[in-house]
């Protein structure tokens, strides 16, 4: 058995401790050790974005982060987007806009789209497409994803104004 390393971190607002081998990716830790299987593995080399999580406030591919690197870090996953039993507007808009078909890419898109709207509350279509280009979807042709992000932007604007 390979040596394991103790890591203390914060995931979706909760302090979490885990043990992992140095070679374990953050994605492996989240899915296999912590049971947070919402983050998906589509390629395991940073080319599909299905494993996107927020690491210290920026979106990363969790397959390209080692578990041991997140000592002291703050992580948010798709499981943390809905709060107090209510869906976040980006989730609600994805459902109303039929932005998912098979749904495997959806967690990554939601994390990235939420990050985009927090950085840029009024993105143009081009900005949405540019910022979500690291997330692949094979089912939708992206139309309804982009429209749902636009809808969420409008909705968030209404609630804050």
């Amino acid at each position, binding site marked *: 058995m390979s040596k394991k390393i103790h890591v203390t971190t914060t995931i979706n607002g909760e302090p979490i401790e885990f043990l992992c081998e140095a*070679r374990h*990716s953050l994605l492996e830790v989240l899915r296999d050790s912590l049971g947070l299987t919402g983050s998906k593995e589509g390629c395991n080399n940073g080319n599909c*974005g299905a494993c996107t999580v927020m690491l210290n406030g920026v979106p990363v*591919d969790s397959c*390209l*982060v080692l578990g*041991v690197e997140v000592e002291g870090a703050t992580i948010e996953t798709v499981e943390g987007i809905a709060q107090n039993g209510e869906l976040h507007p980006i989730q609600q808009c994805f459902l109303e806009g039929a932005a998912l078909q098979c749904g495997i890419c959806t967690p990554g898109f939601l994390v990235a789209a939420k990050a985009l709207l927090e950085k840029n509350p009024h993105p143009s279509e081009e900005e949405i497409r540019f910022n979500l*280009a690291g997330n692949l979807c094979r089912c939708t042709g992206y139309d309804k994803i982009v429209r749902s992000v636009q809808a969420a932007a409008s909705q968030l604007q209404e609630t804050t104004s």
Partner: protein
Amino acid sequence: MKNFEYAAPANVESATALLEKYGDAAKILAGGTDIIVQLREGLRAADVVIDIKNIPEIVDYQYSADVGLQLGAATPCYRIYGDEELAKAYPAVLDSTRIIGGWQIQSRASVGGNLCNASPAADSIPSLIAHQATCHIAGPHGRRSVAAQDFCTGPGRNTLEQGEMLVALTLPPSKPNSGSAYLRFIPRNEMDIAVVGAASWVQLDDSGESIQSGRIALAAVAPVPLYAEEASSWLSGQPATAATFVEAGELAKNIVSPISDMRGTAEYRQHLVGVLVKRTLKIAVERARTNQ
């Protein structure tokens, strides 16, 4: 993937000591976007992975208009293109950092890592060469520096000796009436490896009509990113016109030795050198004129 030791030294000296001790069996982890994939796919192997992101001088940058940019080797791309001052001073570098992978990659990947990975197609290296960047290297026997265009020695290989690491890059202060641009050609619009990449930097005379000096650099057309010396020197004194841009592109073609692979044929790459040099010069001149 084979397991390895993980070390996160707090200063450069500790890091270089580890590097010297383990030699080739030590690998540096900055953003991890190349090295983790390479370890996983068995392209590189490590007994110890040295995470350098706990070393303050390596993950931050300092900029002033007088001194220029000191860029910690592991500073992630998103911080660079998020800084408007840097965007004005080094637009080609900004162009590069904005297109290395998608957003998730840019949150982690660094210019220094891109340089150390030494891919012939690296998107940031032509911009560094065009901006006359200097690489600052620390090793067990002290520090040394080398010009960006001399850093790479072959595909995946660089000038670092055993025990050495890249600590920072410095870019000279932005000159008046100067501008730069980086473009790569890719079949998609994002998330792709450059078929050819080109960066151009120009300084115009006060009239804005003539090029005082220029620097052109290329990627994915040789075993290492290239400084196009002949084309660059030729630019001095030339009018900032479309004909000049085309001619510079033709001159730049002389130094390339591209391969044919899944990304394009040698003939196509050669042709693209002309197209991209022409286009980057045009943008660089426009930026110089608007003093961006």
